[in-house]
């Protein structure tokens, strides 16, 4: 364990991986409460179009996918705002359009199919320093935004109209949630690959929500689960040469199942409900 940390590529992988995990899990908690969680998947599809376009025109795929995801997220917001189309439909239309574009480009330019695969499945231990640095900066900016706005974001997920009456700019926060998701998806693409990019947004917060605790603890547990999965993923990849991304997602799924089972047993054994019998 200590030995592995002496390699710079491992140090960088840990640092980036952990920051990405924090960004994903924190943001994901708000997205799930707002019932926006599938937007991550949509934005990942959009980013795929960006990767193919980048490879075709010789732009760093990381940059082109970020541009695609950002334009995609803003288009979703505009479609929703300016037309009668629902958010989930807007996501569906734009993400599939971009996915189609990506597949089209990949099929006309056969040469880079293997490159595309590495973006789809992720390879944090093999990516360029510049990509790692960008990923880290993106994750840090998401974390910074959440630190500044966490209370308002929580309020907006609880009740949008009351939040408005408290003078909170709910349109700004809703837009930011989608834009931050675009940024987070692209930054997590480097760690777990595009196919699994939204896994860290959805699964750790879902595990934490099952604990049925306060909001503060829920978000901290989500972050803890995500970090834990990154560490285990990297360690097993180092020693056993397993695919990091697959391990990370499987660990998260395992945590989810363990908590679910535990809660089922707990409910079964103390079927007496807590009673706050004081009014």
């Amino acid at each position, binding site marked *: 364990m200590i030995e592995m940390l002496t390699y710079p590529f491992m140090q960088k992988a840990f640092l980036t991986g952990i920051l990405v995990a924090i960004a994903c899990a924190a943001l994901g908690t708000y997205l799930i*409460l707002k019932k926006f969680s599938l937007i991550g998947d949509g934005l990942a599809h959009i980013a795929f179009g960006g990767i193919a376009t980048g490879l075709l025109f010789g732009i760093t795929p990381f940059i082109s996918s970020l541009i695609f995801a950002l334009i995609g997220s803003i288009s979703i917001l505009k479609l929703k705002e300016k037309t009668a189309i629902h958010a989930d439909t807007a996501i569906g239309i734009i993400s599939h359009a971009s996915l189609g574009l990506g597949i089209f480009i990949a099929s006309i330019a056969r040469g880079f199919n293997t490159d595309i695969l590495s973006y789809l499945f992720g390879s944090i231990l093999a990516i360029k320093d510049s990509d790692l640095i960008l990923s880290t900066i993106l994750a840090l900016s998401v974390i910074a935004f959440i*630190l*500044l*706005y966490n*209370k*308002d974001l*929580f*309020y907006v997920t*609880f*009740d949008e*109209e*009351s*939040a*408005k*009456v*408290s*003078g*909170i700019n709910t349109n700004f926060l809703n837009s930011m949630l989608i834009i931050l998701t675009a940024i987070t998806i692209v930054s997590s693409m480097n760690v777990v690959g595009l196919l699994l990019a939204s896994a860290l947004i959805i699964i750790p917060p879902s595990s934490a*929500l099952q604990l*049925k*605790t*306060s*909001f*503060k*603890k*829920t978000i901290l547990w989500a972050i803890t689960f995500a970090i834990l999965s990154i560490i285990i993923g990297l360690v097993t990849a180092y020693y056993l040469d397993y695919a990091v991304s697959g391990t990370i997602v499987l660990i998260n799924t395992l945590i989810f199942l363990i908590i679910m089972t535990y809660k089922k047993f707990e409910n079964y054994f103390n079927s007496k409900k*807590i009673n*706050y019998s*004081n*009014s």
Partner: protein
Amino acid sequence: MKEEIININDVSFAYSKQDVVKNITLTIHKGEFVGLIGPNGSGKTTLLKIMLGLLEPNKGSVKLFDKPIKKFKDWSKIGYVPQKATNIDKNFPATVQEIVLMGLLSTKKIPKIITQKDNQKIQNALELTNITNLSKARITDLSGGQQQRALIAKALVSNPLIILLDEPTTGVDQKTQENFYKLLAKLNKKGITIVLVTHDIGRITRNVTKVASINQKLTFFGNHKEFCAKDKNHPHEHTLCIHGE
């Protein structure tokens, strides 16, 4: 004349074609306890949302604390408990304390750091609504009446000058309802202006100082004695009128 808190002038609103609120003009003054009544679908919630700037009227103007609503910024002066506020998703992870804290956010600037003083304010609001012992409980573990109190505490924590409550007693039992009305009377005695919306005209509290009755249009606006006098022509039994003299 007392200070004007809410002033709506000739306001009409339609979600699509048909007006659901039509040519309503009314002013609410400091210290009043206004019962806003009307049957289901008469436009009460809509009117309340117009008063709060959540909906923009198609016609007419709204002022809060003598400022055109678009220019109004002092949201901590207003407490709001929306309709169906206790329909909280079973999985929503929030303690009573965390919910009440939301009510303080209107008083603070980003990054909205919570100070010792803020915690004291939260404690006071919990005490006022008599739920101090529930502060660490998850809101979804509480009974309807307890949730109601938590939401009132949230509306009160910023020390507002007015609170607006939209059908706050639906789904709670008679005794909880009575306690709840006592709490509102206590708040009104402290000088807080109250707007209470209800469709259940038979159960409206006797503590209201004014009644606004709407059915798209304003059909009555005045003190409750006048309302009861007018009501003698009707066969309803209003607690408002029975106990009100």
